């Protein structure tokens, strides 16, 4: 693949007249034309005419020396579980095909205020439930690095669009690793922000207490640029933190000798050899630059995966109750209300979604709630305490996935293996802590990434 410019470089080049934003748009269109049919990163694309019209307006502004937004002229793909009033928002489900929300998500508003252009809505596992982007009602997304393989999920469309140059920046979402796993599998960067740093208003919920809209890009700097635009308190989201807009883009790189990295045993073992070797190579390199390495233990980690899935399924079962054939496009055609609800849900939801609803209902049922849901929330508390204890003095280095990107269909047969792909990533969601994934190496043409878990609101402070 040709070297793709980073978004922050583009912003500078547009401003200095080195690159023409209109020409850039046509480059992106060309990438989409060449790749999209094979990759299927998008569920819907904005009309090229509208995009051109918009970028011409922005280009005129730049040329006239007017003040333009921080993202002026950049093309952003938006995961299709984030509401847009100008493009359908399906959450990858037949249930919402085609649903056009009457409002924009807060993050989308903030993008548009900074003159970003939404190029299209990115593919995802249905309602963000999956780790491979194979479970979309609109067909799987393929990994641009190897079209036989998955791009990870559930924000696979976002990651793939970045990887092949079909967007400059992307918004994903991350409930248990949904932005970070695809980043690792596509050699892009994904940040799951501190819980509450980015407004969830307009994010179609899967696991409300775990998930964050996540900036994704081709570099850490780009992710910082995007985070600064979308982050900060939103009065429309009661779980959003009362903090100022983040300013991570201008943070300078930390002095290695002042950085401590914690190698948490439970988050660094158990992956395929090639991944473990790559992990240690980067850590040793950092150590040689002066970074201090320290070992830590997180014994509760073994309980994190079941706790995570219990909470996520319980919340999902509740969140998905609203799809009953009344407001949304998939109708049951039943002759009574009960029948209508049953048929609409039968037709509208895919298998994985139904499975998760059933498990969530089970976990919340009278008589089982204590054993499952309540027990899981207790594990969450321990994870939160432990992670915040460790991250107070260091950045946690962790694997992202135990395996390299699997082939399409490879993991689907065994749900436990599928869920196990999230073993390293769910910790940050349970803890509410920020976690960033960036690429470190390639093995046989397949990307390998590393994950850094920081302290709450530690975004931008000190990634090595």
């Amino acid at each position, binding site marked *: 693949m040709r070297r793709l410019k980073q978004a922050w470089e583009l912003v500078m080049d547009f401003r200095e007249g080195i690159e023409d934003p209109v020409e850039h748009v046509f480059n992106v269109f060309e990438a989409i034309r060449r790749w999209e049919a094979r990759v299927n990163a998008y569920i819907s694309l904005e009309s090229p005419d509208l995009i051109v019209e918009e970028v011409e307006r922005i280009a005129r502004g730049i040329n006239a020396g007017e003040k333009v937004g921080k993202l002026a002229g950049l093309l952003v793909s938006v995961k299709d579980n*984030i*509401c847009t009033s100008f493009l359908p928002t399906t*959450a990858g489900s037949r249930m*919402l095909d085609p649903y056009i*929300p*009457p*409002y924009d*998500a807060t993050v989308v508003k903030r993008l548009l205020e900074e003159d970003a252009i939404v190029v299209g809505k990115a593919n995802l596992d249905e309602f963000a439930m999956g780790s491979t982007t194979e479970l979309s009602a609109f067909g799987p997304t393929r990994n641009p690095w190897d079209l036989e393989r998955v791009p990870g999920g559930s924000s696979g469309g976002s990651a793939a669009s970045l990887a092949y140059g079909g967007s400059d920046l992307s918004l994903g979402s991350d409930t248990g690793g949904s932005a970070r796993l695809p980043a690792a599998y596509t050699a892009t960067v994904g940040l799951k922000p501190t819980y509450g740093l980015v407004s*969830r*208003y*307009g*994010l*179609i*919920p899967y*696991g*409300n*207490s775990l998930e964050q809209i996540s900036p994704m890009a081709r570099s850490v700097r780009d992710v910082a640029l995007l985070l600064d635009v979308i982050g900060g308190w939103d*009065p*429309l*989201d*009661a*779980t959003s933190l009362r903090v100022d807009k983040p300013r991570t883009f201008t943070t300078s790189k930390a002095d290695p000798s002042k950085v401590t990295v914690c190698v948490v045993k439970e988050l660094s073992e158990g992956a395929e050899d090639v991944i473990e070797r790559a992990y240690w190579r980067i850590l040793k390199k950092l150590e040689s630059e002066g970074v201090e390495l320290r070992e830590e233990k997180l014994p509760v980690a073994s309980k994190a995966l079941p706790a995570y899935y219990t909470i996520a399924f*319980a*919340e999902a*079962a*509740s*969140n998905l*109750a*609203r799809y*009953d054939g*009344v*407001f949304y496009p998939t109708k049951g055609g039943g002759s009574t*209300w*009960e029948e209508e*609800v049953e048929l609409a849900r039968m037709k509208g939801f895919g298998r994985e979604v139904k499975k998760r609803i059933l498990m969530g*209902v089970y976990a*919340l*049922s*009278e008589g089982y*709630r204590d054993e499952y*849901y*309540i027990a899981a*929330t207790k594990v969450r508390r321990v994870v939160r305490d432990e992670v915040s204890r460790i991250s107070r003095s260091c950045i946690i280095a962790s694997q992202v996935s135990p395996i390299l990107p699997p082939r399409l269909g490879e993991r689907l047969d065994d749900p436990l293996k599928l869920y196990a792909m999230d073993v390293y990533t769910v910790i940050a969601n349970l803890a509410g802590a920020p976690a960033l994934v960036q690429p470190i190496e390639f093995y046989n043409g397949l990307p390998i990434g590393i994950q850094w878990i920081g302290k709450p609101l530690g975004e931008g402070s000190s990634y090595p």
Partner: protein
Amino acid sequence: MKVTIGLEIHVQMSEAGSKLFCNCKADYRGLNVNTNVCPVCLGLPGALPVVSKRSVELALATSLALKCEIPKFIVFTRKHYFYPDLPKNYQISMIERAGGVPICRNGVISFLDPSRWEWKSCRIRRVNIEEDPGRTVYEEGGITGSPYALVDYNRSGVPLLEIVTEPDIETPRDARLLVEYLLLTLEYLGVTNPRLEGVFRVDANISLDGGERVEVKNIGSIADVEKALNYEILRQSKIREAGGVIERETRHWDPVRGVTRPLRHKEYEEEYLYFPDPDLPPIAITEEMVKGALKIAVEADLQALLSELLKHNIPPEHAWSIVSTKPALDLFKKVVSLGGDPQVVARMLAVDYKGELREQGKDPYDPSNWPPPDTILELSKLTLTGVYPYDTIKGLIIPNLVSNPLARLETLVPEKAGDLDLVVEEVLREEVRAVKDYLEGKTQALNYLVGRVIKKIGRKAVDPRIIRGLLEKRIKAGAPRT
């Protein structure tokens, strides 16, 4: 026979301004269907609830008024059930399961039996804040026969208080009095307007002599609380007399026929999947919030308001009549603070003015149907100076004032007797024949004379009874002076 009654009262916080979780209006009445809605109260995917501060403040004031234990923080929970008028298919409430924390636990309400002037009390188990669902309208055939249903979401998300009592109530009458007193308290708190259509519903649990309890749902008026429970006592007694056993069940109050009917039996245990709403973090109840709510609660202490009135030696029934009509109390306080005699003012407002409002079919709870304090002050002074007999004020001035509360007093007050004397003399001089007729026993001649006097006075309001009295007195006293 020992009767045990517990109540569950749902009251809309119609005066809270906004809905519980969005900026749509709390009082949706009179709006076109489905116009008082937004992504939040329609439960659209991605829209998030944000708790209205005012609702929490008012609920907190209610909890203080009910002497509840106030929690350190409150936690909203989701209660799941599928229903067309519940757009998310879950209701956000505060059920105490899986970590839900209501705004009030273990309170008590003291309520008045005004006709016996007896105070009673009932423990309050808890008070929840929750959202009202939308409204389903069935076409002909009702819920079972209608081929379709229409849903209006204007009500969806309106803040509700769910007030649950312990089963401490012993008679249907007490149940009614409790509800009446509670609603009045909520009105004084500025929580609700109890007279709005559908603003509250009562569910009542009743058991006789320790038998199984029966729940009666859907009681929508204060009077029906007593009626429904009396009906239930009668129904259950009959079954027992015939040797039957009361089974635990839920029944529906039919206000038109005045009977309770069994609801369809549920084939399965209800499963609501309660858990704390992850979109709504716990809300801390700070000291500052309690202080603010206390200010509201103090103003709504009916017991204190009543004893304030009783201090002025106002008859208890007048005091209750005033307190139970908030605009009357507001007016009373103002007039007394301006120097009005409390007893006279109380009688004037509680008995005469309020009675005349009812007579003329005007709403006593609408402040605009009451005159400004100055008018009442002047009237009460007139009474005390004896210029007019109280009957004149009651029979003549107050009816006119009720028709036009903003009228200036001068235009309502009849001519003073002194001025009238001259007119009467004049008429007697002119109408010698009529006087003669009257003296000869033609009593209707007096009516004619009264008419002449009224005509001469012109448009000013005079009580004809006064004129009649004057004429009679004068004629009996002898021929007019010439």
